[in-house]
C-alpha cells in the first residue's frame, strides 16, 4: 500500500462514525486507506488537529459530521465547517492543495454514503499524489539503523 493515499477520517460519534460502522456491517466495499478517528462531535475539532495530521504526512483528511441542523450539540458541525475552511486557507498558504481536506455531512443511516465519500477522496488524492510531507521511508530506515548501532555500541561498552 506504499503508493496508496493515506487518509484520516475525523468522524462524529453520532453520525459518520455510526455510518462507517454500518458500512462495515453491510459488508460494503470501500478502500482500506482510511483511518477513522472518533470525535464526540465535530465541534471538538480544532485547526491544530488538522495541521498536526498534515504535518505527520497524511495525504488527506475527511471531516464528517451530522447533517446541518442535526448536530446533537446544536451547532458543533457548523463550527467545524468554519474551522475546516480556515484550515484549507492555511494549507494553501503552506503550499499544499486545500482539496486534500474536506468536510462532509451525513446521517448515521448513510453507510453507503460513507463508502462513497472515502472512494471520492481516494480518487482525488491519487491525482494529487503522495503528500510531499510523508516521512521518507529511507530516512526512517536510516534512523532505525543508527539507533541499532548506538545500542550495539552501548552493549559492546558494557561487555568491556
Amino acid at each position, binding site marked *: 500500500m506504499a503508493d496508496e493515499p493515506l487518509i484520516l477520517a475525523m468522524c462524529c460519534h453520532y453520525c459518520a462514525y455510526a455510518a462507517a460502522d454500518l458500512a462495515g456491517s453491510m459488508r460494503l466495499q470501500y478502500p482500506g486507506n482510511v483511518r477513522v478517528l472518533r470525535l464526540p462531535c465535530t465541534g471538538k475539532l*480544532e*485547526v*491544530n488537529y488538522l*495541521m*498536526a495530521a*498534515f*504535518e505527520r504526512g497524511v495525504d488527506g483528511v475527511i471531516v464528517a459530521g451530522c447533517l446541518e441542523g442535526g448536530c446533537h450539540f446544536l451547532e458543533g458541525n457548523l463550527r467545524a465547517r468554519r474551522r475546516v475552511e480556515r484550515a484549507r486557507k*492555511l494549507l494553501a*498558504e*503552506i*503550499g*499544499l492543495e486545500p482539496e486534500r481536506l474536506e468536510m462532509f455531512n451525513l446521517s448515521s443511516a448513510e453507510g453507503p454514503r460513507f463508502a462513497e465519500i472515502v472512494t471520492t477522496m481516494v480518487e482525488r488524492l491519487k491525482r494529487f499524489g503522495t503528500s*510531499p*510531507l510523508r516521512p521518507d521511508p529511507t530516512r526512517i530506515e536510516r534512523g532505525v539503523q543508527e539507533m541499532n548501532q548506538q545500542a550495539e555500541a552501548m552493549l559492546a561498552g558494557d561487555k568491556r
Partner: protein
Amino acid sequence: MIVADRKKIPQIRDMVKNHRRVLLVGCGTCVTVCLAGGEREVGILGSALRMALRLQHHDVVVDECTIERQCEDAFIDILAQRAPEYDAICSLGCGAGVQALAERFSNIAVYPGLNTQFMGILESQGVWTEKCSGCGNCLLGEFAGICPITRCAKHLLNGPCGGSRGGKCEVNANIDCGWQLIHDRAGKLGILDPFEQIVPPHDWSTGLDGGPRKVVREDQCIAGLGPKS
C-alpha cells in the same frame, strides 16, 4: 486591548528560512484575546511553518512556547535559559513584545509574526474595531465619549465633513461616520451646545510627535533604577 493579526505564512517562512533553529514565542495577553498570538495560534503557526519550510527543503527546527506577557522583561526571564539554543525568534506578540524580545536578546535575530493593528475592542465574536489612537491628550470628555481622531476618517475636530451620508462615511460606506455618532450621542445627552464653537487644533505635542513617549511614575521608581534616559 492591542489588536493584531498574523502575517501570511510565506512571508514568515521567508524571514526565517536561512536560520537553523527558530523559537516561536507567543504572548498570553492582548494577542491571546484577539486570537492572533496565544498558545493555540502558536501551535497552529508552528505546524504550518514547519510544513511550509519542509516543502521548500529548508532544514529549520521550529519550536514553540508562549509566555504570559511579552512586553515586560520580568516575564521574558523565563526564556533566558532557552533562547540561546536558537539563532532566531519569531514573536507572536504585538510590536512592543517583539521589541522587548529584541532588547533582551541582543545576539538573536527577532522577527514579527504578527501585524499589530490598533487599540480597540471586541465588537462581536471574531470582529475587532479600532477605538483609540493613543494621542496622549484624551478628548473623549468633549466629544460625547466618541473619539473624533480615531473614528472620523479625516481625524476632524470640527465635523462632520460634507461627505457624511445617511450615517456613513464618504471614505468607506461600510464604516459609520464618527461625527454622526458624536452628534447623535451628544443630542441624546443634551450637550449639543458646545458644538457651536470652533475647536482649536489638537495639541499633537503629546502624541505622534517628538519621538517615543515615556510615562514616569516617580513614586513607583526604584532608587537608582529610574528611566534609562
